[in-house]
């Protein structure tokens, strides 16, 4: 019997008996994903769209309730766009730019995210996690209808994993009883409490933060609050040591109260107690409580994300504090990074060792996220008297002097990682070009006369020529490179040139399937380009 651990927002993958359950011997699959959350489903989508068969196992029949991750960064939307499901996210999501910071009863300052012009997607959208997940699953359904070899098996709980040199065997419980399957590759996307990590006895060390946060999602009857992010340090209404107010779709607002470490959860979650905090903050306003939760957090990561034929992604591999929206957004970058590499390895076009670069690159990403979210947490919840004194001194000064404002840290919003130390990077041989597109960087978007640059990149290797001659085709070791030729004539805004050429008159970029730069040169030179491609595929 499999009991639900949580209530569902959307029942999208009800249990169905699979042919594997009637097989005499365990059926072998190229890729099995444990966990049908956003990271597991995105992994399946990435691989399935490449034509790689993938099976997702989840012990529930759909998406859990609760808004949870509510800020999705531009990079996550760009990745989702590559999978073909960003449009409904953008349509449903709330775009916000203005943030206000308060201390006690005073506004300290406000900031505008004022996103750089010329990107298809905004810096951030606010969207309840269940919607984000639903749009991914709906995209899976459309891909399946078009022949993508993806299976999502609801109410399939993995009870045991046996590891072998070249595969893993999984023991699975279902409402129809147990069965086994084998996986050439097993991807652990089973969340912060990862049962897979537990079964394998793997480490998950890090720093515990001794504080609790109470979340209340409320629907305002009279929707008069502006679409802004409001953050209070030591609010005068005394509802928490800090408080965050953020808008979501459907007229719902997220309120986060920092309520201390030693709290009686049951008592705090009583509606009358939550309402007392909300009333003190909001005054005479009518609202309905939609969802509440208390969370604590740690900043930690696994020492290695790849363990032979088992690879971890998302919260299963790393956990950060929520400040800065680096959880789900980091997980989406894990998927983006792993998908094409695993695709090449499964197809036999790249050696298994290519997957070690996933470890290098995403551990760099995890460390960057942990560093940023730890610093924000230390600022928001100072751990000593002197730290508290400095924090309040910064807030006092920030109210009057611009110099102190960059020191105010209520969360540094998630930006994608530049894989500067990646073993896959090639040369940076384009004199005069800007650092934002150096090898290892995620390609910044730019408007073209008929759409956006990122629409032309990704999915496979691209050779991007800017005012440069390219060959019609290029193939190395069975890996095809797609030439994309652009000229200044298509760059009316000048953004493409500013972001990719700088002072250079022409340039050639080799770009990975996850839209990160491998190498750049002034002009196409075949030997150099082939070498860079081989290096980016782990072939040398």
């Amino acid at each position, binding site marked *: 019997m499999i009991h639900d651990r949580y209530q569902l927002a959307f029942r999208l993958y009800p249990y169905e008996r699979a042919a594997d359950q009637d097989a005499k011997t365990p059926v072998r699959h190229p890729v099995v994903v444990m966990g049908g959350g956003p990271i597991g489903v995105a992994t399946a989508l990435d691989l399935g769209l490449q034509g790689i068969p993938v099976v997702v196992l989840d012990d529930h029949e759909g998406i859990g309730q609760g808004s949870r991750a509510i800020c999705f960064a531009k990079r996550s939307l760009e990745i989702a766009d590559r999978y073909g499901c960003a449009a409904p996210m953008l349509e449903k999501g709330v775009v916000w730019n203005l943030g206000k910071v308060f201390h006690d009863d005073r506004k300290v300052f406000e900031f505008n995210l004022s996103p750089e012009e010329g990107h298809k997607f905004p810096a951030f959208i606010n969207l309840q996690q269940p919607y984000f997940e639903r749009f991914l699953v709906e995209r899976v359904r459309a891909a399946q209808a078009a022949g993508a070899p993806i299976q999502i098996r609801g109410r399939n709980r993995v009870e045991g994993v046996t590891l072998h040199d070249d595969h893993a065997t999984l023991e699975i419980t279902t409402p129809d009883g147990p069965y086994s399957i084998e996986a050439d590759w097993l991807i652990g996307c089973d969340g912060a409490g990862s049962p897979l990590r537990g079964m394998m006895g793997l480490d998950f060390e890090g720093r515990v933060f001794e504080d609790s946060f109470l979340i209340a999602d409320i629907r305002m009857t009279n929707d008069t609050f502006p679409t802004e992010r409001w953050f209070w340090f030591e609010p005068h209404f005394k509802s928490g040591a800090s408080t965050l107010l953020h808008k979501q779709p459907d007229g719902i607002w997220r309120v986060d109260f920092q309520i201390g470490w030693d709290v009686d959860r049951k008592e705090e979650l009583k509606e009358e107690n939550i309402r007392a905090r909300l009333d003190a903050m909001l005054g005479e306003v009518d609202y309905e409580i939609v969802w509440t939760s208390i969370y604590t957090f740690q900043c930690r990561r696994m020492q290695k994300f790849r363990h032979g034929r088992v690879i971890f992604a998302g919260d299963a591999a790393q956990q950060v504090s929520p400040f800065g929206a680096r959880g789900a957004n980091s997980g989406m970058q894990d998927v983006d990074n792993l998908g094409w590499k695993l695709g090449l390895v499964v197809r036999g076009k790249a050696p298994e060792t290519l997957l070690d670069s996933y470890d290098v690159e995403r551990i760099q990403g995890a460390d960057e996220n942990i560093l940023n979210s730890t610093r924000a947490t230390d600022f928001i919840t100072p751990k000593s008297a*002197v730290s508290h004194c*400095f924090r309040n001194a910064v807030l006092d*000064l920030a109210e*009057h002097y611009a110099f102190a404002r*960059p*020191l105010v840290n209520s969360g540094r919003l998630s930006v994608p990682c530049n894989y500067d130390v990646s073993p896959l990077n090639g040369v940076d041989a384009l004199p005069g070009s800007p650092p934002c597109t150096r090898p290892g960087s995620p390609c910044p978007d730019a408007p073209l006369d008929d759409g956006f640059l990122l629409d032309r990149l990704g999915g496979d290797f691209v050779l991007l020529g800017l005012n440069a001659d390219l060959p019609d085709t290029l193939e190395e070791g069975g890996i095809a490179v797609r030439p994309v030729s652009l000229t200044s004539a298509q760059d009316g805004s000048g953004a493409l040139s500013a972001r990719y050429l700088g002072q250079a008159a022409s340039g050639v970029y080799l770009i990975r399937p996850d839209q990160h730069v491998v190498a750049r040169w002034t002009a196409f030179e075949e030997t150099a380009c082939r070498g860079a491609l081989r290096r980016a595929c782990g072939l040398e």
Partner: protein
Amino acid sequence: MSLTTDPNIPDPDGFYARLIACHEGLSEAESAAVNARLILILANQIGDADMLAQALEMARHPGQ
């Protein structure tokens, strides 16, 4: 010359983290002593009497 009040610290988060780390494990009295020494070291670096007077006034009465 007037004191700069525009942002002038590269990597503000890194600086702030080092500032807090400098106090790790100290008692409040020890931290106050570190802060006093730090102020004197930075004051010496500034040197200019007029600028120091402005800084003292800003710290004592922010925004006035």
